[in-house]
Structures are given as C-alpha cells and as structure tokens.
C-alpha cells in the first residue's frame, strides 16, 4: 500500500522552502525541533507573537527553520539580543534556541545574568558535548576524558553541569532530558513555554559526526541506546548532583520549578511609578 501525504500537520510551523535542513544523519536536532513544534501545537501560543532567537552553531540554525519571526544573531549573544527584543515588546513570547558552546562558553556570562535578572524567556539548549559545526572541538560541556579535535589525548577540563549553573544563577524552571525522551521533553518544553520568567531546558543529544565517532559511538543509534540504558529520571533532585561523566548515568528530569517576579514585570511597574 502506498501512502501519499499532501501535507504534514506541523507544516505551518516550518519554512518549507528551507527544508531539507543542514543537520547530519543521526543528529539529535531534528528530533528536538520536532518536539518543540509539537509543544507549540499543544500550547496554543499565538505564533504571531512568538520570536525565536539563536546564536551560532548547529543548534543556532533552528531559528532559520521555524516560520515565525526569527533571529540568527552573533556567537554567544542570542540571550542579550532576546533580552532587548522582549523588553521592547512585552507581548512577545521569546525563545532562545542554541547550543552548549554558544550559550555557556562564549555566551556564558549572558546566560547567568539573564537568569539572575529573571528575564521572561525560554532557553532551550541542545547539549552535544562539543562544537559540532566547526568539526568537533572541545566545549564547556565536554565530559572529562572525552576525545575531541582539540583534546586529542582526552579532555582534562572539568565540564559545566548546565542545569546546576542555571539553577544557581536563578532560573525559575530547569529540566534536562535526552533526545530519546521525546514525550517527556515535549511536556517540559510546554511547561517552560508556559512559565513566566527565565526557564531552561537542556537536551542531551547525539553528535555522531563530530563527537560520537571519536568516543566509541559512531552512529546516532548507538548514542540513543546509551541514553536508554543510562538515563535515570530523578525529578526534583538538587541539580548539583546531576553531573555528567563519560560512561556514567545521565540524570534527567525536572529539577527546578519555582515562582519569582520577573525583570519585565518589575521594569513596567517602575515605569508606571515614574510616570505618575
């Protein structure tokens, strides 16, 4: 039997003329984007008011595929760009979609300060442990001993635990999943989108081309198998206890979900006061 589909239910969310995308076979980004589009579908966000901002890198290309106002900015600066966007137009729902290197190495300072201020935005970080687009260099999340092109003898740096950084910096919502956990990830994305304040979702995702093949996981499938065997769901634990190590378990779940006044509310309150 032949099945011919004229359209896909998620077509309206994509810039069809931009597909196929640039991502490699086995990459986790397609799955993550798929989850995000489903999350949009189920949250009923008015797409006219949705803006997606990305930095540079493979994940940075997400902005270019979603059919909303989308901004592909400079390396590391997606968050401050998004800050300006949101503060200038409070009606907007602003989502920053970028990679671990972009958000936590070159853009690390912006991340912690936006979380500290509790700017109302959702940050989705796809963590593939390395700089994939440029060929697989060491990143701020590369686990100890992992091999990359700039750590040919194995990584000697201690990596960031992103959820711990986010929670410590003041994020009101923090969750981590792997790209295997599509339903749970979609639910977390929905929660993050509905959350007022700085929400953060980390997705551990395979990068077979640049990272996996140097670390005994040459295909995306092998990495997903690893996720299946080693993911442990622990909702509500202190993210400090969720460090990631080569060969170790990956602790996933929702770690933080708290309420705190946002910068946006405070600034518009201040304006009201000053105008009196």
């Amino acid at each position, binding site marked *: 039997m032949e099945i011919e589909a004229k359209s896909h239910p998620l077509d309206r969310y994509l810039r069809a003329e931009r597909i196929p995308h640039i991502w490699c076979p086995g990459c986790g980004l397609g799955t993550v984007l798929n989850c995000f589009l489903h999350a949009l579908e189920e949250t009923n966000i008015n797409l006219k008011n949705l803006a997606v901002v990305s930095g540079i890198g493979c994940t940075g290309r997400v902005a270019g595929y979603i059919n909303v*106002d989308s*901004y592909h900015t400079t390396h590391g600066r997606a968050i401050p760009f998004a800050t300006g966007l949101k503060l200038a137009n409070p009606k907007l729902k602003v989502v920053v979609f970028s990679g671990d290197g972009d958000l936590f190495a070159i853009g690390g300072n912006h991340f912690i300060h936006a979380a500290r201020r509790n700017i109302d935005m959702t940050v989705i970080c796809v963590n593939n442990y390395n700089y994939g687009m440029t060929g697989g260099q060491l990143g701020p999340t590369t686990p100890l001993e992992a091999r990359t092109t700039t750590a040919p003898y194995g990584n000697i740096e201690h990596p960031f635990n992103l959820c711990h950084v986010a929670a410590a910096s003041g994020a009101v919502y923090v969750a981590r999943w792997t790209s295997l956990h599509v339903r749970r990830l979609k639910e977390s994305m929905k929660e993050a989108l509905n959350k007022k304040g700085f929400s953060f979702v980390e997705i551990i995702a395979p990068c077979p081309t640049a990272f996996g093949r140097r670390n005994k996981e040459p295909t995306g499938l092998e990495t997903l198998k690893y996720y299946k065997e080693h993911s442990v769901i622990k909702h509500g634990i202190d993210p400090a206890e969720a460090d990631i190590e080569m060969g170790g378990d990956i602790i996933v779940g929702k770690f933080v979900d708290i309420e705190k006044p946002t910068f946006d509310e405070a600034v518009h309150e201040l304006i009201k006061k000053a105008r009196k």
Partner: protein
Amino acid sequence: MKKQIKFYSGNIAAAEGALVAGCRFFAGYPITPSSEIAEHMALRLPQVGGVFIQMEDELASMAAILGASWGGAKSMTATSGPGFSLMQENIGLGAMTETPCVVINVQRAGPSTGMPTLVGQADIMQARWGSHGDYEIIALSPFSPQECFDLTIKAFNLAEEYRVPVIVLMDESVGHMFEKVVIPPKDKIKIVERKKPTVPPEKYMPYKAEDFVPEMACAGEGYNVHVTGLTHDEKGYPQATDPEVQDRLVRRLCDKIRKNEKKLRDIEEYEMDDAEVAIVSFGISARSSKAAVRLARQRGYKVGLIRLKTIWPFPDEYFEKLADEIKKFVVVEINYGQIKLEVERNVGRDKTFLLPKMGGEIHKPDEIYRKIKEVYNGN
C-alpha cells in the same frame, strides 16, 4: 509648546536629544567618560515609558539594542573606547541585518585603558571599520552640548532612514562641558521613522530594496521575518556559499551610504571665502581651531576652518574640489593622524599637514596659530 533653554553637559544633552528623537530603549554598561548618559537615561526613560537596562558588558549592551530595535523600539547605547571595542562584533551584525540604532562613543585617550578620564579622538577609524568585513556606517561629531542634542536627534533620524547603526563620536571634553542648550518646540523638530512594509506578508521581501533601503517589519507584526548575520538573499534566507548573493548584498550595504554621501554631508565652513590655508577639524578640536583662525585672521593670514559634523561617510568629492582652490590643509585632531589620511587621500600628500595631539588634553589656540603661521609661510 515654547522653546526651552537648558544648561546641560554634552552627555546630558545627548541623552535628552535621544529622548526627543523617540529613543525608548537603552542598554549600557558604565564606563568613564560616558556614564552620565546611562545615568540620565536610567532616570528619564521610565518617565516617558521607555526601558533602561544595565547589561553585564558592552557585548550584551550592543546585542540588546539590536534586539530592541527589532522589537520595534528606537534604541541606543553609550560607551567609550574599551566598550566601543567590545561592541564592534554586534555593530557588524547591525550593519549586516540593517538594524537602526544609535551608539554614542564619548572618546577618551587610548589605546587600551589609556587615560579613562581624559579626552581623545582616536576612534575615528575604528568607528568606520571596527567590525570585520566590508560595510559602511554613519558617524557624526558634535562640538558643543547644543550639537550633542541636535546631532543625536539627527543620528536617530539617519539610523531610521538608512537602517544602519549610527555612531555619535563625541569626546570627553564635549561630553563633560556645560553650555546653554536650546530645545526647540516639538513641532519644530524633524523626527524620522523607519519605513514599514506596504505589502501583505506573503509578498514581503525583507531585504529587497528599491532605493537601497528595504522596508522593515519588526517582531510581532505578522511578517515572520528571518534575520541573520549570514550572507542572505532578498528573502532574508542564508546563502552562505553563493558569491553572487554576497556581491549583491555587500554592494547594497555599502552603496546605500556611499552613494548618499552628498545628502549625508554636514560641514561648517568658517572664514573660507578667501582662504588660502584651511584647517580641517571636528569635535572639541574644532573649537580651538576656530579660536586659532580668529587669531590668525586678526594678523592678516587668509585662513579658514572646515569643520566636519559628518565624519563618515567622508566627503571625498568636497575635498577633491577644494584641492584646486586651497593651497594647504592643516588637520587638527586628538590622535596621530586619522582624518589626515582621508584628507591627504583627496588633496594630496604635499598639501596636507598634521597637528596631532596624542590625547589627554586639547589643542591650545596658540599652538594651532603657530602651526598656521609655519604652514602659511611654507616652512
């Protein structure tokens, strides 16, 4: 409304000018000698319904004002040398994505940390091409608090009209000196707004321009625009491997400024009618230069002053024409010869003389007068 007379420093005047121009978003990071602008914006913006935010650094400040501009606000930041260096990355993004915004650089003496509290004018070349790649911006240089007010308004207008970051190249002296500032009635001040799309979203081409400058749809207006720092086609989509698209884009980004040089030209001529020697100067240096021209004229020297209010684009054609009429040009600037390079490119090396100052102080009229004498008499 009647005109108002205020007594402002250049920094405060620039901030007030920004508010009059419609600036409703300021992101900045404190740095001497520009901090009074941020402080004044923090006080005044909320009163007019605008947002002030102090960012974690100048990289973030520049990125935030670009974001705010796409959010529909007229936006600005203010800084000085070291901060201006950090902003270059996103000034490039602003030029590439054609984002209207204003950057005030209250110049201090460099390089590096240099003399934080003292005057310099050595960011001239950085203002032009401080970010990588080929692009053009507009830079204006006020020489009094009144002009800090006027030219900041003009900077916003030009940013909106040309969709480009506009740099206001102030200097510490102009920023910190207080003088009378006349604020004209509101209806006497020209305010320009960016061109909005006139076609429905499905027909809209965000980077297609009839007359160099495309129409701008901001976030939330229903146009689903994609904006990228990558080389992009008229639809706004990345074409990062197509040299033809690159050629078309870079040409337009540069030509929208270069081909409008005459329109953007803003020069004050003083005692130039019968001048044989011309001083070329700008900003605070032009004040000392003016005093020196008066001194020289009293003693019979036929000397005049060309004061550049628009620094970039540089008025090549203007100087080319003058090269036949004026025997010698003396460039007075607080750096070791930056505008001088532009002048000599147009009038010739043999006709161009430099009176530099490395920073930390401004020229005294006397020393400029001595240079005039020396050059005039052919030494």
